[in-house]
């Protein structure tokens, strides 16, 4: 089954000092630039459109179509903004990518900026990951020194400056309009749309905002052709993607594979669930995507397949939970995260997450009655689709999906007057305790 993997972005992660310009260029890096500069900007956009690349930040919007929304008759400058504010619980793909191979992102930024006629690009990196910020800054510096950035890149006449911006520690800034606010130096809260960023984004100018992985995929599309990219994946979810497996698996990590792979296949690659345990539930794309169970092992992990299973592909952050885990406890932790990260702008998310935590915490302690489950679901109903941005929606996903699949476990808390699980058993050191 080793052929299931399609390492492109992760291809050189095992190379010595893979993050350096020399290592990247040794692998053929920055060669897509000249090919792109030989094409017209619209042809680059067309190639990305034809490849079927869909946004890798979770929503899966076709990247080429997003680029074509930029009104080129607008006299204002155009901007490319890379969303590297990877903060979703479980999601761990952009940060290792930028650590191991920052130059593929820089090259992608150059090609993408060329396509949308942007002469300034921003990479907004989550503020907590200082090591990543430094690595990308170093890569950008190397690229400038090598003539890949700056004026008249590779003699093409195309100018590009790249700014690496450090976020200030807010999950909400992964929401693209909140990110723009943060980039402009304002309070990170989502903006009212319309106008959409393509029309009036950064500094009220036409702006494309793409995920790190989306942009990093562009050089391979230009180099190898749209057809090569489209040959991977499924009918409507083309190409490859990084699947990050975490939690109770033998070999957690990033597995780059065509979209449409199943968790069963991935688990085989990862050596299976922790020894002696069975898969209980998992998230397909981070904590904001409704969780799935062992019955979904063969769901194709593409946008349509996961959607049909009642969840979302999201960021392909596969968090694996085995049978030692109390789902109520896990959901409570996630909900505490959303409460902590709610930006406060809109009522349902701000107040709703405050209340959800209290209701869940009470249930976890075995207090209350079955009606509280209906209350919890009704609270979720009053948040989902009522909040200003998708953060509020995401906060309800683990709760409503966990009640859907594990209602009995919630009830068990009530009948037993507390949690029936020993949280120690789900830890990494479970079974290694020294007994007195």
């Amino acid at each position, binding site marked *: 089954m080793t052929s299931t993997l399609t390492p492109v972005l992760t291809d050189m992660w095992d190379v010595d000092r893979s993050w350096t310009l020399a290592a990247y260029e040794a692998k053929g890096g920055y060669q897509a630039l000249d090919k792109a500069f030989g094409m017209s900007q619209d042809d680059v956009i067309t190639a990305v459109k034809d490849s079927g690349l869909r946004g890798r930040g979770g929503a899966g919007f076709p990247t080429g179509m997003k680029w074509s929304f930029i009104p080129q008759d607008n006299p204002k400058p155009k901007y490319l903004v890379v969303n590297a504010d990877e903060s979703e619980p479980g999601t761990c793909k952009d940060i290792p990518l930028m650590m191991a191979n920052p130059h593929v992102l820089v090259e992608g930024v150059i090609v993408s900026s060329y396509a949308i006629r942007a002469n300034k690009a921003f990479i907004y990196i989550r503020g907590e990951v200082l090591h990543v910020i430094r690595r990308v800054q170093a890569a950008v510096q190397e690229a400038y020194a090598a003539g890949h950035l700056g004026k008249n890149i590779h003699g093409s006449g195309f100018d590009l400056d790249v700014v690496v911006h450090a976020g200030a520690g*807010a999950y909400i800034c992964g929401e693209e309009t909140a990110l723009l606010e943060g980039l402009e130096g304002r309070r990170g809260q989502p903006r*009212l749309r319309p106008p959409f960023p393509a029309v009036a984004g950064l500094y009220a100018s036409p702006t494309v905002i793409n995920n790190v992985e989306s942009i990093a995929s562009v050089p391979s599309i230009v180099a190898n052709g749209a057809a090569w990219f489209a040959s991977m994946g499924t009918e409507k979810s083309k190409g490859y993607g990084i699947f990050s497996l975490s939690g109770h698996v033998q070999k957690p990590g990033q597995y780059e594979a065509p979209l449409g792979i199943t968790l069963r296949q991935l688990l085989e690659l990862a050596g299976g669930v922790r020894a002696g345990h069975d898969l209980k539930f998992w998230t397909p794309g981070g904590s904001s995507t409704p969780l799935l169970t062992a019955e979904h092992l063969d769901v194709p992990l593409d946008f349509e397949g996961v959607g049909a299973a009642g969840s979302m592909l999201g960021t392909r952050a596969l968090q694996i939970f085995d049978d030692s885990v109390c789902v109520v406890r896990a959901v409570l932790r996630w909900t505490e995260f959303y409460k902590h990260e709610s930006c406060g702008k809109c*009522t349902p998310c701000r107040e709703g997450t*405050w209340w959800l935590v209290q209701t869940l915490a009470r249930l976890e302690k075995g207090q209350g009655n079955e009606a509280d489950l209906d209350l919890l679901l009704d*609270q979720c109903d009053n948040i989902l689709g*009522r909040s200003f941005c998708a953060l509020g929606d995401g906060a309800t996903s683990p709760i409503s999906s966990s009640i859907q699949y594990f209602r009995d476990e919630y009830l068990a808390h009530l009948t037993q007057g507390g949690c029936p699980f020993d949280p120690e058993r789900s830890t990494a050191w479970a079974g290694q305790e020294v007994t007195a």
Partner: protein
Amino acid sequence: MTTTPEKAAAGEVERTDLVNVTIDGIQVAVPKDTLVIRAAEQVGVQVPRFCDHPLLAPVGACRQCLVDVPDAGNGRGFPKPQASCTLPVAEGMVVNTQATSPVADKAQQGVMEFLLINHPLDCPVCDKGGECPLQNQAMSNGRAESRFSGGDEGIAPAIKRTFPKPINLSPIVLLDRERCIVCQRCTRFADEIAGDPFIELLERGAQQQIGIAEDAPFLSYFSGNVIQICPVGALTSEAYRFRSRPFDLVSAPAVAEHDACGSAIRVDHRRGQVMRRLAGNDPEVNEEWITDKDRFAFTYAHLDDRITYPQVRDTDGNLRPASWPEAFAVAARGLAAAKDAGGVGVLTGGRLTAEDAYAYSKFARVALGTNDIDFRARPLSAEETSFLAAQVVLTTPGNGGVTYDDLESASKVVLVGLEPEDEAGAIFLRLRKAVLAGRTQVVALAPYTTRGLGKLSGRLVPTAPGDEPAAIRSLLEQSEYGIDSTAVVLVGERLATVPGALSAAAELAAKSGARLAWVPRRAGDRGAVEAGCLPNLLPGGRPVADAAARVDVATAWGVDALPEAEGRDADAIVAALAAGELGGLVVAGVDPLDTADPAATRAAIEGAGFVVALDLRSSEVTALADVVLPVAPVSDKSGSFVNWEGRLRPFEATLSNPSSLPDLRILSGIAEEMSLVSAAAPLGFRTVAEVRAEMAQLGPWDGVSTSSTTGAQPVEPSSSVEPVETTDGVDHLRLATWKQSLDNGRMQDGDKYLKATARPPVALVTRAVFDAHGPTITITGDRGSVTLPAAVADDLVDGVVWVPANSFGAGVLSDLASPGSRVRVEGGQA
């Protein structure tokens, strides 16, 4: 409180721009771009809302106004409920509000329930309780019982977020954070309307709160508006907090008396006492905003120095209480004698209602037989007198006068001798609205870019005091300024002190086609012009010099003739009193400190043969008067102000106080007594209603003015100004000055919280002067010397120093320098 102002009456709407939508099954046509929440109001459905405010940009934060949209106008519906405050209508759109849609109703109830989980249940002690949009809408669109419960049978209690109570955002605005639903109305007002974004959201999630920077309180001349638009009791006023319950208050509409803007206000009173004032809603004038001075400065009328009974000077030289009939008789006899001993001058101040001003105007002509009357208790000029008669009187919104709306549609608004943020707050806010909408550019002829001009993104034409005429001409000569018929020129009353400036402004308007308006500082100024409280004008803009006009008025008043010669202006009255040419004075609400020469005015009153003072509070004038007559404050009488537009702003009495007599009633009483002892005629009215009827009957002058229509002879500016002299480390500078919105004005007395928000007095100098003389400077003029902290104004014109006119001591005119004179600046000791 926050529904759409009825500005666009149905008839005014362009029919071609209508969009047809169906709301709750009812078809309605509304103008393009109307938000669904407003369109719903048209069919009688009030969608609950908090963050939405018709005068603020949509934000969609509170989510209370969610509605179901089964068809967005394109045949497809929205899968989720939509915030109706951010959704513009589209042709064919179908909207179901809480009235017909269970989805919308549940969504709204859900949001309301969320809002209440962290909201304290302190409604019984909250200022807002009883007039609270949260309380009201929780009743109309919320669940009867909360599910945010617990605390029994071993169940953990639900925990509300709490904060320590309350914190000061400024000396007058308090914040109870736990009541706040972070709708952002206040921060949006501060940012979008006032341009003073000193309050901002802090923290996040349920801890999100409104806050200020540690070293920057919410100091704004318009801060009180946030208290009014707060939809909960989170923002309260230090002065009103815990003072009253809304349901105990009686509300009355009124008009603000602090400036010439004519702002609509609402006065709330209880048991004969004004408890608070709020902004009224007048889309054509002040929209829904007022200055803090209009809102908080009302306690002046109820201080210990209020005069409550008439007084006459006894044979021992002291004032003693007198009955009204005695006071009338003593005043009448004294005035009759003074009239025979050279005549009586009348100084009316600038704070009278139009009706009272009319009474003074008639009293001067009919009872005293003189045109020696002037409302200007400030530096003035003959040029200004002519300018008012030629350019100002009788202009109204109805006959082409400049209006607030014109400011919004003008391409350019030129400010000369006017600092709107300080001197006309409603104009400032309207200009800012126009500028932010991208329609209007503000150009100011001023010595430096003021904070207000900065907030208007205005263009400064650097102009030293005295250089205004040349600067005005440069606007005409240089086409880059683009002054044409789409421009508006606003001139302030301060221009009267600059020879040639008003003439130059009139010339600019005449040659460019730009429209011109005069913006005085006081509420009664413009009404006094209309009523003829000027030596050259009779009521209704009738020129004294025009025989037909005099006959017109004399006929209406039933007298044989009116005095023919134009009278003395205020300065000349003062001079004539000092010279013994006038025998007496009738003076109302004049503070000598405001006049061009305070000492001369004081001496003139002191030396006058007979002085009748009509005033609200004891002052140095009443101390010198022979008869002191207490007048009603604006809250106790009906009347009208005429604002800078020429718009009549009538109001009724808020309080019924039988012992408070309006000026016109008192003048009528004196005139009646005078008619018994001399050849004077009675005034023929005793009530405001009678005066209004008489004014209406008389009407405006419809004749052609025989005096020059261009503002008399153009006055040439004084010779070019000599260069700055620096001798022995002393700079001789020109003094720029005006009154700030909040200062030592007597009508701001009594509210220490308001006073604490005034900008501290500081002298503005150039960088060079600052570097030479340090952070504290001593300024010396021909009337005295003052030491103030200095600050640098980056673009201050060389050779100029600016100080606030009435923020230290007894004010610039008394303590520092005469108008137009030079001052010396040197380093001072702190």
